[in-house]
Each structure stands twice: as C-alpha cells, then as structure tokens.
C-alpha cells in the first residue's frame, strides 16, 4: 500500500494518459488535425543530412506542433518535479495552489499535443516527438528562489515561443487556422502563469509585466511580449541542460 501511494503521481499520469488516448481515439474523427505536408518556404536551401538516430521535429505545421509539444513536455516535467520537492511541500497554501495549477495545466497541454500530433500523422507515429527525458539535477527543488527563477524562465520562454511560432503556422487550410487559434488559447495561459510567478518573486511591483522582459515596437514603448523564433528558443532550452533526449529542428518553417 505504501509503495503504491508513493507512486501515486506516476500511476495517475499513466492512467490518465491511457484513458486519454483511448477515449480520444474515437473523438478525433473529423477533427481539424489532418496531416499536413506543409513545406517551408526555403525549398531552395539544401536539406541537412538526416540522422536516423535522432528525431527531427519535422516540416511545416507538424514541425511546429512537435516544437510546442517539446516545450510543454519540459514545462510539465519541471512542475511535476516541483510538486515532489521540499519547497512545494512546505510552501504557503497560496503558492502550493499556484504550482499545482501550473503542473495541471502543463500536463494537460502536453497530453493534448500528444493526442493532436498522433491524430495528425495518422498511421506513421514515428513522426510524433517521443517522450523526452529530462535532467533537473542542477535545480534545487528545496529552494523557493531557485524554483521560482526557473519557473519564470520557462513561462516567459513559453510566451515568447508561441508568439514567435504563430506566423510560422501555415493557415492555408482550416486545420492550420485551428492550430493558430490553439496556439492563441495556450499562449495567454502561459502569460497568466508568467505573471503569477513573477508576482510571487516581487509582489505588488511591476514585475508581472516587467520592463525587463517586454520589448518595444516602433518606439511606442516597452509594452509587448517577445516573439522569439524557434531556433533561438531551442538554443536557450538546450542551454538549460535540462533536455537529455536529443532531437533536431532542421526542417521547421522559418517564414
């Protein structure tokens, strides 16, 4: 019994995922998730040599979906670890609530993308980004400062990543428009998270939408979130050292 309890989270994740995939199998009929062979606009550039050992996110909208899925996997894995850590265990209830919500939302995003991409690729599930392995050994999950700091980086990065990816989605059919709307539905939740985490770090200040994280457009002032291209986001993500499983992004659209 005791052992089961300690594995409760893992079990419930597995159960949820199993139920999720089973049920959604019926639900996806007629959904907007159709496989797109959308090519990037840079057809004239030489394609990099594919490495059969390393997963590539893929081209077009598939690539963008896998890209978002990778980011959601990272966020979800991080908050799952936060909830296993001693900072969270001893945190005030208001902070515990926030991290529990963030964990829930990111797990939901992760599982949603898994289902969406699986549906989009049809029978060829080798095109779905596999479950990534993460290494958070550099994070002190007993440290409030450390946990909040990493959370802020992840959420701000998520916001800028979705903002940068929007224009890369091929909206020439209704599936593409669905993806764009979905990105919009998720990015504002990431921004709500970022705001809450930043306010925990510096309550009642301007930190929730800090001049330090916002950028200017056309001289109108620091009032806009960043919109960061995938290459820059992925470089930053790789530099965290958190992602163990290698993957490439050689075919993502860049315009």
């Amino acid at each position, binding site marked *: 019994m005791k052992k089961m309890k300690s594995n409760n989270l893992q079990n419930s994740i597995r159960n949820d995922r199993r139920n999720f995939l089973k049920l959604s199998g019926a639900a996806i009929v007629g959904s907007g998730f159709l496989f797109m062979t959308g090519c990037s606009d840079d057809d004239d550039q030489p394609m990099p040599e594919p490495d059969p050992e390393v997963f590539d996110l893929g081209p077009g909208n598939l690539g963008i979906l896998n890209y978002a899925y990778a980011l959601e996997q990272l966020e979800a894995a991080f908050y799952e670890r936060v909830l296993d850590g001693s900072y969270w265990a001893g945190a005030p209830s208001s902070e515990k609530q926030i991290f529990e919500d963030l964990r829930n939302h990111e797990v*939901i995003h992760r*599982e949603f993308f898994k289902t969406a991409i699986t549906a989009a690729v049809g029978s060829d599930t080798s095109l779905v980004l596999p479950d990534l392995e993460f290494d958070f050994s550099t994070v002190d999950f007993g440290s409030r400062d450390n946990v909040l700091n990493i959370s802020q980086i992840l959420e701000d990065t998520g916001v800028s990543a979705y903002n940068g990816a929007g224009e890369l989605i091929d909206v020439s059919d209704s599936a593409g428009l669905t993806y764009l709307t979905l990105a919009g*539905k998720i990015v504002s939740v990431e*921004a709500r998270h970022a705001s809450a985490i930043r306010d925990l770090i510096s309550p009642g200040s301007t930190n929730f939408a800090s001049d330090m994280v916002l950028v200017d457009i056309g001289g109108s002032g620091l009032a806009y979130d960043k919109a960061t291209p995938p290459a820059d986001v992925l470089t930053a993500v790789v530099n965290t050292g958190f992602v163990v499983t290698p993957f490439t992004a050689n075919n993502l659209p860049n315009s």
Partner: protein
Amino acid sequence: MNFIKILDILSNKELLNEKGSRRDSFQQFKNVGKGIALASIPFGLAATSSKTKAATSSMATAAFQASNTDVLNFALTLEYLEADFYQMGLDSGVIPAEDQAVFNQISKHEDSHVAFLVAALGDDAIEKPTFDFTGGDLMLDPFNDYPTFMALAQGFEDTGVRAYKGQAGALANSNELLRYALQIHSVEARHASQVRRMRQERGWIIQDNNTLPDDFAAIYAGEDNLSQGGVNLSGMFGSFGGDDATTAAFDEPLTMAEVNAIASIFIA
C-alpha cells in the same frame, strides 16, 4: 457613437450571409454614410447573432474574416477604452498607494498600444470614442469605489485577451500584424492574471466563472469549453484538476461582435 454598432453589424456573419458579400456591405457603408447604413440594415438579426455558439463560432474560419484595418480599429477601440479607464483611475485617487505601481505599469502599456495602433492605422485610425465608465444604466462608480475599479479592470483585461485571440486568424495574412497582435495579446493576459490575483482570484479562468457583476457574464461565456481542435477533453484529467483545470488551461476567443457587445456598455 455608432461606430461600434456598425462594426457589430459588419462583423455579423449570419447577417452578411443573407445580405450578400461583406464587400457589398462595406460599399453600402461608404456610399451612404453611417446613419443611413445603420437604418438600412435589419438590426434585430445583428443583435441576436451567433452568441450561443460562442466556442465554435469564435474559431477562426475562412468563412468570414474582417480586413486588417477593421481588426486594428477594433483593437484600437479596446485599447482606447483601457487607456482612458486606467488614466482616469490614476487621476481619481481611487487606487491605494500599494497598488499604484501595478496600475501605472498597466496604464503605460495601454498607452503604448494606443500609440502603436494609431501609428499603424495612420489616416484609417478611428477617433477615440467617448467612454462612460458608469456603464449607463448600471450606474457604476469605479473612480470612487475601488472594488468596482478592480472588477472593471479585470473585465477589460480578460475581454482584451479574448478579443485579440479571436482575431488571430483574420490577421494571419500578415506575418507582421499577426506577430504584433500576439505580442500585445499576451501582455493583456499578464495584466489579467495580475488584476485577478489582486482580487483574490486565480490568475486563470476556471470554467465560465464570472466574479464580476452579473451584467458582465458575457465576458466569460464559452470559457468552459472542453473541446479543443475537435478533441473532447471532458473527464480526461481527473488526477490533474479535472475539467476545472482543463478549462483553465485553454483561454477561449470571442468574436468581434461578442466583444463589441461588451465594450458598447461603456461607450457613451
């Protein structure tokens, strides 16, 4: 101030399907002027639009999309409203000292958004409407009553998030405009989260819970959507907060008409 109402009419898909192409409607609008265009279009249909189908009809579809100028002026109207509201709040003294930093920052952002949109639209930019933050018959007193000020701030921010989201598809024909709109959209979401949390709420929207006066339920209508991209997520995440968390994990768009119906409460 009938501009909002005209936009409302022009953005009504059902009406336009009946009356012919949108281009025709616009031509009519240009030819005969605002007042006559209003009189010539059946209002009843426009007012009872596709609200009941909020979650699906708000999806960007190819069936109807406003021009970029329409969308930017729509956004500008909301930004004018927000900018005026916060400036009047800051001027009124209703905001306690400990909350000034937050509202100064939000006010600054809304001013920037106005400046940006005015510059982007150039000669096409609409003039600032006259706002009435009492909400007319609602007789609200936000500049003397701080809880009311906070409630309206939350309502405007959550509406702003939904409004920009609803126009992403319409702006997808321009990478730059889409990018700029997204960059504003997520800042509105940062604001919304902050104000919600100052009101002792979660920063995110659970189900379609409306903690503002009942008159503003439309701001949260459809936020309880559990179907994403054709996948029914209902009951899928029992161990992860259940449907409450699932609805909170996805913000929902509003159509231009739905947003205009909310905004028009505050347009004199």
